[in-house]
C-alpha cells in the first residue's frame, strides 16, 4: 500500500483547498474510479484512524470533509441532463446519517457511465425518499449507512422501498457494509456492496447481463 492517501489526508486536514485540487489533478492518468478507490476513500478512512489515535479532533475531521467535498464538486461537476432514455439512479443517506462523501463518489461514478442521477445527500427521512422514488422512478436506489444504531432504520427503509410497485434495484453501501454482514437487515431485498470495487464490478456485470439479454 503506498502513502498517496496519507499525503492527500494531510492536505485535507490542513484545509488547503488549492493544494488538494492540485494533488488529485496530478494523477490525471488515473480514471475516476481509481482516484476514488485508491486515494480519496482510503484518505477518509485514514482520517478516521487518526481521530481514533487521538491525533486529530472531530473539528479537524469536519474541515477535511468540507475540503474533500469541495474537491469532488470542483473536479467532477454534474454531467448535466443525460437524455430521457438514460437509466436513472437516486442516492441518499438514512435519516441521521451525515457521512455523505461516499455516496457523492458513487453518484459521480454512475454519472460517468451515462446514468441520470439524483444525489439527495445526507440525513433524508424515509418518507421523503420514498415519495421521491415513487415520482421519479429511478432504476436504482442507493443508500448509505455508517452508524450501527441506524441499522433498524435500514431494515424499515429497505422494506419500504422494496414495496415500490415498479420494483427498483436497491443498493446498500457505506462503512458498515464493509464491516458487518448486513444481510439480516436487507433480507434479500437489496444488493449489499462492501466497497467501491464491488460496486464497480456489480455495475459492469449488470450492464453486461443486460447486453447479453438484449442479444438473446
Amino acid at each position: 500500500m503506498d502513502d498517496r492517501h496519507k499525503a492527500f489526508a494531510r492536505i485535507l486536514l490542513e484545509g488547503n483547498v488549492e493544494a488538494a485540487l492540485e494533488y488529485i489533478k496530478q494523477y490525471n492518468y488515473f480514471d475516476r474510479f481509481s482516484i476514488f478507490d485508491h486515494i480519496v476513500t482510503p484518505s477518509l478512512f485514514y482520517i478516521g484512524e487518526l481521530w481514533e489515535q487521538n491525533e486529530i479532533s472531530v473539528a479537524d475531521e469536519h474541515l477535511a470533509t468540507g475540503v474533500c467535498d469541495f474537491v469532488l464538486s470542483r473536479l467532477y461537476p454534474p454531467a448535466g441532463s443525460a437524455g430521457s432514455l438514460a437509466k436513472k439512479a437516486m442516492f441518499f443517506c438514512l435519516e441521521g446519517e451525515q457521512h455523505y462523501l461516499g455516496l457523492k463518489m458513487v453518484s459521480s461514478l454512475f454519472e460517468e457511465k451515462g446514468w441520470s442521477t439524483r444525489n439527495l445527500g445526507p440525513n433524508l427521512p424515509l418518507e421523503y425518499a420514498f415519495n421521491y422514488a415513487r415520482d421519479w422512478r429511478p432504476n436504482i436506489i442507493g443508500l448509505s449507512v455508517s452508524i450501527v444504531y441506524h441499522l433498524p432504520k435500514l431494515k424499515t427503509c429497505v422494506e419500504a422501498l422494496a414495496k415500490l410497485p415498479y420494483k427498483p434495484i436497491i443498493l446498500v453501501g457505506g462503512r458498515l457494509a464493509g464491516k458487518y454482514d448486513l444481510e439480516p437487515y436487507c433480507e434479500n431485498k437489496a444488493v449489499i456492496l462492501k466497497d467501491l470495487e464491488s460496486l464497480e464490478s456489480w455495475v459492469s456485470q449488470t450492464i453486461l447481463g443486460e447486453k447479453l439479454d438484449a442479444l438473446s
Partner: protein
Amino acid sequence: MHYPEEYLPVPYFKIDNNLNIISYSLEALKHFNLESKKFTSLIDEGSIDKLYNNLFSTKNNQKIELNFRTKYEEIALFETHISTDHEDHCHLVLMPIGNSIHILEERLSALQKRLLSTDFELFEKKEELVKAMKRLNELSGPFIPISEELAFVPIFGNVTAEKMKVINANTIKHVYEGDFHTVLFDFTAVGNFKSSGILLLGELFQMLNLMGNKKIKLIGLKPSHCFQLNDHLIDWPVVFESTLKQVIKTVQQKKQIQKRLT
C-alpha cells in the same frame, strides 16, 4: 479524605479495570442511562477501540474525544479527561463539546448545500450558454426572403462547423418550403473560414443544387477569403457577384425587360 464526587458540575465516572462503573456524579445521570454497570455500554461503537487504547495508559491525565450514546438515543461528543489512581481505578471527566461541534456541523452543512447548488447553477449556466450559442449561430446566417423568387442569406462572423450546421438546416428548410429561384449568400461580414466550416458550406451548396432549378450566388467575397477557400470555389455549383446592389439591379433590369416583352 472523601471527595463528594456526586456534586461535580460535569459528568464524572470512576471505573475499575473491568470497566464496571463504581461511582458517578449526578450530572452523569442527566446525560446517560446508567442501568447497565458496564461503562462500555455508554460508548458509541466507533469510539470503543479509542477508549481501550487510552484507558489505563501510562500517560496520566489523558484528554481524548469520545462519542457517547445518551439516554435520548443520540450520539454526543465529549472531551474525556482520564486519569488512573494507585488502585487501578480510572477517573473520567466528560466535558460536552457537542454544541461547539454542532455549530461547525451546521456550517459544513451550509457549505455542502452551497456546493450542491453551485454545481447546479454552473450546470444551468452551461445549458443557457449552449442555447445562447445555438441562437447566436442561427442569427449569424438568417434566411431573408427578398422577393418570392430571391432569398438572401448574409453570414456573420467566422464560418465554423457549429455555425454551418445550424445555418444549413435552416436554409434547406426555407428553400424547401419556398419557391426561390435564386439564393444569395453574402460573405461581406465573414472573418475566417475554418476547414470543417468550408466542408459544410460546400455540402449546403451541393444540397441546394440537388433540390433543382436554383441559382446559388456568392457575394462579398474578399481576396483573403479566396485564399482560404482556394480550390473549393471551382468545385462549388455557384456563380459569383460582387455586391448585393448589383444583383438586385440585374434582377430588376430582367424584370423590366420581361414586362416590356409581355
